[in-house]
């Protein structure tokens, strides 16, 4: 039976120490990152795994481990910005070795989970992540994608969407915010073949839990990219974290799909889609873009892009059906 949250509530009640991340962390009110961490850890615990967490530098790392406090009740390691995947590779290999030499009982089930933001994944940590996936370490890498270097004050990253207003790519008279297109990180990781890669959204917990379950039971590396709205720099109300995530899924901005060893599967196909402009309008970071005279043209282009990407996804799903690469 798939894990469900009523069952989780029964198990964990208000005891956050059993989940792994507890109260008193200093992330902004309404932040998406602790929700993603909580969802992942709860699923792992519910399935009988012992989570071991590694964090790349980022919002989640700096706000949960302010000295002399820590918000973690599971084994936790932080090394540097770029190498969470390499660090967790080492942790996983060490556990394997200790099991071999009889230092830890063979039957202990560990879930090695790396959390990283988009800076630590799209840009700085890409090489170590690629290495981890290529070497085939059994680590679950969870990306909480807040689409920029939000911890240091909204600088542009490889994950920032086109047209977003950031301090290093501001909307002005000459350029309309970021001009490049957001990297398709799931496709990049999925192209490593022997890997389970998926997108997830907090607005769809059942889908999120199912993907974490699949990733943890997958024999090899796994990667989950979850959209994590940043209330501060997406310029949204604190309470809009869930509704904006939902809009992202409904407007095809953040399609929910997975790549299992080269096989694409779209896990959620909404019957009706909303126009992309609703997602853009809900956030203040696109306000400067939308007040430009050429806003309509740019929005139309973006709409065309998400439509095309959705069509491509459906075609890929059709073309790769049951054709596992490994």
């Amino acid at each position: 039976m798939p894990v469900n949250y009523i069952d989780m509530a029964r198990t964990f009640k208000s005891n956050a120490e059993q989940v792994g991340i507890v109260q008193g962390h200093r992330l902004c009110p309404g932040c998406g990152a602790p929700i993603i961490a909580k969802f992942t850890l709860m699923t792992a615990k519910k399935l009988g795994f012992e989570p071991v967490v590694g964090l790349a530098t980022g919002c989640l790392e700096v706000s949960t481990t302010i000295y002399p406090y820590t918000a973690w009740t599971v084994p936790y390691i932080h090394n540097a910005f770029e190498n969470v995947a390499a660090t967790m590779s080492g942790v996983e290999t060490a556990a394997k070795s200790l099991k071999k030499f009889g230092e830890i009982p063979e039957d202990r089930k560990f879930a090695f989970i790396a959390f990283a933001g988009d800076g630590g994944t799209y840009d700085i940590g890409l090489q170590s992540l690629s290495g981890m996936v290529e070497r085939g370490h059994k680590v679950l890498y969870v990306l909480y994608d807040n689409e920029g270097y939000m911890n240091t004050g909204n600088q542009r990253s490889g994950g920032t969407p086109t047209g977003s207003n950031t301090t290093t790519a501001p909307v002005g008279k000459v350029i309309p915010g970021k001009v490049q297109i957001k990297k398709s990180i799931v496709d990049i990781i999925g192209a490593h073949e022997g890997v389970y890669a998926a997108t997830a959204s907090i607005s769809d917990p059942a889908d999120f839990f199912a993907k974490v379950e699949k990733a943890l039971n997958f024999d090899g590396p796994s990667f989950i990219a979850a959209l994590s709205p940043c209330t501060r720099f997406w310029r949204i109300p604190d309470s809009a974290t869930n509704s904006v995530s939902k809009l992202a899924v409904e407007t095809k901005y953040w399609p929910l799909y997975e790549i299992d060893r080269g096989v694409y599967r779209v896990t959620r196909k909404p019957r009706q889609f909303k126009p992309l402009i609703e997602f853009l309008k809900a956030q203040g970071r696109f306000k400067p873009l939308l007040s430009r005279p050429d806003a309509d043209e740019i929005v139309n282009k973006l709409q065309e892009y998400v439509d095309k990407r959705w069509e491509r996804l459906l075609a890929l799903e059709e073309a790769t059906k049951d054709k596992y690469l490994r």
Partner: protein
Amino acid sequence: MALKGWKEIPIGGVIDEPGKSREYHTGTWRVLRPIVDLDKCTHCMLCWLYCPDMAIEITVNEKNRPQMVGFMYDYCKGCGLCADVCPVNAIEMKPETEFLEE
């Protein structure tokens, strides 16, 4: 919390107690206070699931159903996500100024 002096700090400055952040009360940040109307509440646990601060207090009743009890105001940052996800609008966000006497 009284900070430790140099003689008491563990070697390497390690934190020797898991989940120690609970000594830091983020509830002082709050400007809006969530108030739950338990008559309306259907105990669907969505607020518990979404709360980024794990500040929803729940129990399990004799029928093994989880029940909403209230909020941990020591930790609630008042983001209002619980009120946003509540399907029956049982949670209301009230300005903290109304509770100044407490």
